Structure formats: C-alpha cells, structure tokens
C-alpha cells in the first residue's frame, strides 16, 4: 500500500509561508558560475574517423550514483546534440545497430562538500577556498564508454566540470563565467564534459582501429 507520512505534512504547512518570505527576500541573490577549465569543443576540433559508423547511444543521469530519470528527461536532448554535432558517428539510435556498436554516456551530479577531499581536488584544482562558506559547489562527472562490437573491450573516458553557486553580494569567483540561468549553466556543463570526453575518445588508438 502507498502511505503518506503525516508528521512532515504539519511541518510543511507552516514552512510554506516562511519559505515564501525567504523566497521573496532572497530572490535574485543566488548567482551561478561555470568555472573555466574544460574548453568548449567546436565540431571542427574533433579528429573524425575516415568512415564514421552508426552507433547505439544510451544516455543516463545519476545523482550521487543513483539513476535520476527526471534529470535525464530534461537533459538527454542536449547530450544527443553534442554527440551528433561531433561527426564521430554516421548516426545515433536508441535501438541496436547491425554492428552492435554501443556508446554509453553517463553524467553524475554530486555535491562537493569537503574541499580537501580527493573527490573535490579532481574538480577544483587551481581554485582557492577562502570563500567556501558562501559558495556551493556541484560536481559533474561525465563517463563516456564505447564498445565497438559484441564482446569487444570497452573504451572509457572521463571528464569533470563543477558549477558554483554563490549567495548574496559577492564578487564573481575567479576564472569563472556567469550563467544567466541554471539551464544555461547545465547546458554549458554538458557541452564541455561530453564534448571533451568524445574528443579524447576520437584520438584513442582503439577507437580508430
């Protein structure tokens, strides 16, 4: 049977006006930035194979390692666009292709809570953490896996890109560009992480063999 837990409903009733007041007070005070690091990849930047082939494309989005179908539904189109624009494949399909070639792209979204952790260092090399108390960091890891045919070895390439959220009157973080909306920030993150992972795949000797 499906159950509604009644305790939190009472909490939600008085929290709604509080949250609304906070929303009015704080609206417009949250800013988003995309740190520099991974460059944008233009279609001309990819080393294209002589004879691009069709590939089955699977896309997944995980939040802290667990599948997030809602986020995937909102971002899948952007990921597919980056793959199609790369020119590395003749076509992409959700269904299997005759060669059984498979390209799987997973983006994982995890908060960076400890700037001194090895996880954080993978994202934030070169950044200072003097203002860490007023910033939120979200880390995005893109894993691209290519299997050229049934039973073949997997080729895997991983890229990372953080997004920074600041609150209140703070100067923009160093080496970052502002994003007008969350959607713009996520779109930039997708294009950089997927694009750079595909660029690495394109020059992988096993990909072009």
């Amino acid at each position, binding site marked *: *049977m*499906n*159950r*509604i*837990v009644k*305790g*939190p*409903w009472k*909490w*939600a009733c008085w*929290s*709604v006006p*509080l*949250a*609304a007041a*906070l*929303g009015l007070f*704080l609206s417009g005070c*949250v800013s988003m930035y995309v740190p520099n690091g991974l460059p944008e990849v233009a279609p001309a930047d990819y080393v294209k194979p002589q004879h691009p082939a069709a590939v*089955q494309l*699977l*896309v*997944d989005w995980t*939040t802290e390692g*667990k*599948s*997030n*179908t*809602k986020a*995937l*539904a909102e971002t*899948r189109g952007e990921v597919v666009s980056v793959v199609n624009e790369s020119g590395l494949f003749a076509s992409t399909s*959700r*269904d*299997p292709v005759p060669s*059984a070639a*498979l390209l*799987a792209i*997973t983006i994982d979204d995890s*908060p960076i*809570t400890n700037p001194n952790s090895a996880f954080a260092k993978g994202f934030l090399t070169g950044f200072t953490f003097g203002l860490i*108390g*007023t*910033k*939120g960091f979200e880390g995005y890891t893109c894993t691209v*896996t290519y*299997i050229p045919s*049934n*039973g073949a070895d997997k080729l895997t390439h991983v890229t990372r890109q953080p997004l920074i*959220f600041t*609150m209140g009157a703070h100067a923009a973080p160093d080496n970052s560009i502002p994003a007008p909306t969350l959607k713009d920030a996520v779109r930039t993150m997708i294009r950089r992480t997927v694009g750079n992972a595909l660029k690495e795949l394109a020059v992988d000797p096993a990909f072009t063999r």
Partner: protein
Amino acid sequence: MRFRMILLVMLSALASGCATTLAPHQPSVNTVTMLRSSGIQKLAVGDFKLAPGAKADIDKSVSARATSASPAEGTFSAYLKAALVSDLKASGLYDAGAALAIQGQLVDAQLDTGMSTGRAIIAAHFQVTRSGQTAFDKTLKDEHTWDSSFVGAIAIPRAINEYQAGYANLLGQLYKDPDFLRACRAPQ
C-alpha cells in the same frame, strides 16, 4: 552546507502539494550489456496487469508526502511492461512475434518517504511461456532503503526516484534469475 539548507527550504514551498508524471524508464548501459551477453532468445511481451487481490490504488499513483506521482503509461503495471520492452528493445531481444513470451502481474508497490530513512517495495509475478507451455513462473520482490530528510525538497524527489528505481531493480533481478535465464535460452 548552510547555503544549501536555505536554498532547499525555499524549494520546499514548491515541492509541497504537487502532482507529477514520472519520466519514462531508460535502459542503462549495465542492463543492456548484461542482456546482450545473457544468451537468451528474443521475447514477446504480453499482458501486464494488477494481480488479483492487490489494492487498485497501487496501480494508479504513488504518494511522497504531499506530492503524488503517476506513470505516463496510466498504470504502474503498464509502466513495468514498458520498462521491460524498453530494456529488451535496447538489447536487441524484443520480437513481438516470438514463440517465447513473458507476461506479468503487479503484486505490491509501497513507498515510505521517511524522515531519516525512506523505503520502497515493488513486487511482481512473472510468467514465461514457450509456444504456450509455461517455462518460468515466479514472484520477485525488490525492497530497498535510502537516506531521507525532513526537508521536502530533498526527500520528495529522492523518494520518487528511488520508487522508480525499484522497478528497474526488480527487472534487474529478473534478468539475473538463473531459472529465467534457463527458460529463455535455446532448449538443449
């Protein structure tokens, strides 16, 4: 962390009292590679419906605090069927005219959002027939827990996501079941 909490309290106002439609199931790379290497033959997918005696409301929607979620397919038994078809198609193992066919019944579906620990239970009965003869007949159940939160903006989407994951977990169990694999491979 303080910043994240304030932002999430704001978002709680948006998260209460909503109705949402679940995003469609997406085959994962792990599922597809597992099915591709399983050696099973192509399957047709027959009827999926609510099991006799199961409560009708578990098939229509699920509640996470003040938010309700329902599948685009109309019922969760239809959602389970669509997820199975999606996995089989992505693996090249779906054939509407195959002699091997699978059908199922949704037996149970529960979601407890919790304040510190959430829990979901999904159970379904699966039957595989080969040219009309029963080759596999078993009820499988997925039960799993996760860290929840008193903050609705964290707990609600996480609970709905985990509830959906329960269906994927259940199908994953099916694909690994030795009796299912034996029933779906070519007869020796």
